């Protein structure tokens, strides 16, 4: 598979291609920490035939799209317009790209789509796999480069021949690609599990640029193989299936491709049978460039999403729209900000006499851009802990008491942690929302006192109610977590009939639904002996499984806290 040396070769080729057709390729997604290796890449950027402009992840609309130049406006006493960074074609360098908000991503994606000639260099310094550039952008950038594992010794300064690049640029418009080339690239993208149609498109443009660099008038096989390595291989989501002999030893492909998908692939293969050699060469090229740990990466991506429960679980949000006010600070008056008038006046007050003497314009109040104070707020999204408690059977009475105790303890801590608590109990044939999301201790105690027990185990009904509560709470801006407390196997199906097999199936389905909604969960087994079906259920939920026989309220609440804080 790929070695450090060949990675760097690809980087060099990629930079050359980018210098030939910066706007057509959209740009470069550079995943690397700040360091000498990245500096070598950045040093090559001036070879791009566009002015370089730096953005930052929290850049405002006014800077991007232009607007009124406040400094000049205030100084001259008339409205002065200023051009935005996106007004003219440019190489947009975006450092700390992993912190790009969806809003900025949408705007940059729009700028790339409009064909205004921009080229985005996204410098992604993410440390974790899920800390990365928004997919709306990665999809539009032709070149994906990951330098994290690359030692400095394996790199050389990038050499770009300015004259050759200029010639290639001039030639680019005349480079032709045979219709077959299009088909092969599209086919290969499907086989690599790349759904987006932008990928083969970008690969084609890369191949054109490569041909132009080589001084040719038509895209040939070498250009294609390189383009596949550069553009398609980094986007692969599956290993291409082996042809003819379906090797049983081969790693099972991830479950993405649907059956019909597979059919189409086979059709496609039979259609282009006469061109098989070309397909094979391209396929080999792609395989050679696939990251060695593709499967591991894919798995990590999946499980990470389930367990983390989306962005910002109960996290602090520093915004400037609402929440608890924090001190205002000096800032620019661009779109996202609100002026703190009092603080601005206070900042301007001491200077008034001086400014009046200096100013050419007669005015009562002299305010400069430096005086502007911006309002800031901090808010935390509230966490909601949904207890799903098994109240079935006679033994449940003790368990229920412990669960009630745990809820009360957790609620008492809730004032500090800003947690809300809800309680769903399931018994008999159905589940009941005993305690809607609340932070009120008094209300909790009153409702909990009236909780009865006994009957069957309608686990699926309990999970369903929990899911409904969680979806509602999420809509209200809370971050729900589901905690299931039970000891046994489901024996009542969703429709209320005592059918063990159906009940188990329903419970698994509901668990899958909860996972699909990306709600984090935990399963606490309170039975005397660990129950295997519960472990399986926890796996379906993507949740930690915690066996806690004879748990008391304190141990229970600390176990839950530990999982929550993990």
């Amino acid at each position, binding site marked *: 598979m790929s070695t450090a040396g060949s990675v760097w070769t690809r980087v060099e080729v990629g930079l050359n291609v980018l210098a030939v057709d910066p706007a057509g390729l959209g740009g470069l997604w550079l995943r690397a920490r700040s360091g000498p290796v990245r500096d070598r890449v950045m040093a090559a950027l001036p070879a791009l035939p566009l002015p370089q402009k730096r953005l930052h992840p929290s850049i405002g609309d006014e800077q991007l799209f232009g607007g009124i130049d406040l400094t000049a406006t205030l100084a001259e006493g008339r409205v002065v317009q200023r051009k935005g960074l996106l007004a003219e074609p440019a190489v947009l360098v975006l450092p700390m790209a992993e912190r790009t908000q969806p809003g900025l991503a949408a705007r940059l994606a729009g700028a790339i789509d409009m064909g205004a000639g921009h080229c985005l260099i996204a410098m992604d310094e993410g440390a974790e796999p899920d800390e990365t550039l928004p997919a709306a952008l990665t999809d539009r950038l032709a070149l994906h480069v990951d330098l994290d594992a690359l030692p400095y010794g394996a790199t050389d300064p990038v050499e770009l021949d300015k004259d050759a690049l200029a010639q290639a640029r001039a030639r680019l418009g005349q480079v032709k690609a045979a219709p077959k080339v299009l088909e092969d690239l599209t086919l290969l993208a499907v086989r690599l599990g790349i759904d987006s149609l932008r990928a083969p*498109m970008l690969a084609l443009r890369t191949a054109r640029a490569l041909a132009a660099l080589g001084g040719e008038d038509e895209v040939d096989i070498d250009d294609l193989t390189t383009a596949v390595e550069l553009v398609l291989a980094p986007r692969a989501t599956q290993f291409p299936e082996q042809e003819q002999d379906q090797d049983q030893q081969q790693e099972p492909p991830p479950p993405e491709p649907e059956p019909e998908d597979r059919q189409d692939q086979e059709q496609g293969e039979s259609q282009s049978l006469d061109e098989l050699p070309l397909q094979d060469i391209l396929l080999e090229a792609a395989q050679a460039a696939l990251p060695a740990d593709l499967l591991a990466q894919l798995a990590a991506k999946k499980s990470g999403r389930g367990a983390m429960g989306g962005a910002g679980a109960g996290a602090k949000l520093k915004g400037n729209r609402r929440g608890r006010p924090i001190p205002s600070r000096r800032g620019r008056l661009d779109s996202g900000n609100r002026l703190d008038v009092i603080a601005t006046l206070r900042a301007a007050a001491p200077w008034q006499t001086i400014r009046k003497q200096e100013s050419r314009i007669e005015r009562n109040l002299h305010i400069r851009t430096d005086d502007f104070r911006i309002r800031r707020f901090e808010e935390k999204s509230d966490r909601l802990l949904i207890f799903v408690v098994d109240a079935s059977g006679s033994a449940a009475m003790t368990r229920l008491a412990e669960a009630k105790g745990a809820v009360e303890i957790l609620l008492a801590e809730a004032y500090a942690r800003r947690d809300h608590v809800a309680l769903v109990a399931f018994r008999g044939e159905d589940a009941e929302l005993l305690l809607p999301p609340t932070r009120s201790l008094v209300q909790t105690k009153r409702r909990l006192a009236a909780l009865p027990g006994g009957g069957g185990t309608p686990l699926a009904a309990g999970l369903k109610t929990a899911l409904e509560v969680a979806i509602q709470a999420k809509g209200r801006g809370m971050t729900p977590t589901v905690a299931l407390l039970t000891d046994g196997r489901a024996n009542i199906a969703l429709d209320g009939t005592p059918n063990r097999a159906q009940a188990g199936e329903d419970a698994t389905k509901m668990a899958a639904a909860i996972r699909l909604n990306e709600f984090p969960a935990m399963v606490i087994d309170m039975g005397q002996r660990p129950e295997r079906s519960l472990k399986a259920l926890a796996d379906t939920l993507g949740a930690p499984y915690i066996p806690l026989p004879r748990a008391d309220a304190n141990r229970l609440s600390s176990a839950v806290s530990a999982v929550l804080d993990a």
Partner: protein
Amino acid sequence: MTQPFPFSAIVGQEEMKQAMILTAIDPGIGGVLVFGDRGTGKSTAVRALAALLPPIKVVAGCPVNSPSLDRCPDWAHVGQHDIVERPTPVVDLPLGVTEDRVVGALDIEKALSSGEKAFEPGLLARANRGYLYIDEVNLLEDHIVDLLLDVAQSGENVVEREGLSIRHPARFVLVGSGNPEEGELRPQLLDRFGLSVEVASPKDIDTRIEVIRRRDAYEMDYDGFMGKWRQEDAELRDRILAARAHLNTLKTSDAVLRDCAELCLALGSDGLRGELTLLKTSRAVAAFEGAEEVTRDHVRKIASSALRHRLRRDPLDEAGSTTRVTRVVEEVLA
């Protein structure tokens, strides 16, 4: 600046194209929501929509595109009487947009530089009588969604803040697009969209190749490509105009009304908006096809688009709402 990729040149995605055309024929249908994967032509289609819309007549210099001088709001101080023809406005609502920018606010620059209290109209004013396009609509911030819901409901934008008291008409058609993997849409906002379409990457190799081929031609041979497809776009626009004129002469039988009502009942959609949209959309389809009368076939054609987003979500139903609608349509309109 190059023009966006022409609408008629979009390969496949027939349901999405149909929905866009229908909403252009009858803006009363209430907009389109396009949900789907990345790189399936969502943004392309919406950006291309503008070219299909017939121009409107507005008072020159009016910030809310009023059709006649007496409808211009007082605060705008429109002095001109000229009526000019403008393309139907398609206004982009960016994600990180602030409340001020959407509804309009005190013009702070004027306030600071000349001490004048003036109103600076926002995006809602610009979108009046036109289209408001929200890319990644599911990522829109909640308070902006609230605002839009309120205005979309009343058709009027009221600003009461910072010593300003301003109102102006804001009737627009919402067009949204998004990727469902990145977040859900609130049911209240879902309901405001007349039609909803799900798009997926084409699974058929030939279609995929055709997409790439046309896109490549658009980029490599812009003039030739646009020359060819601009013609098609113009023809489509003429058909839309003809359909608009035809809309009022269409007959709708009670049987069709009954079909609509029965469909909505069987699907258990909330409220009566489902029926109304179903009716209006069927009418638009019939007008587009040049039919004399709205028939059951027309209803069947658009039932999925008009209803799939109005169902209550069933977490156990893995098939998704499209299959549910199709099933019920088969049963009711058998």
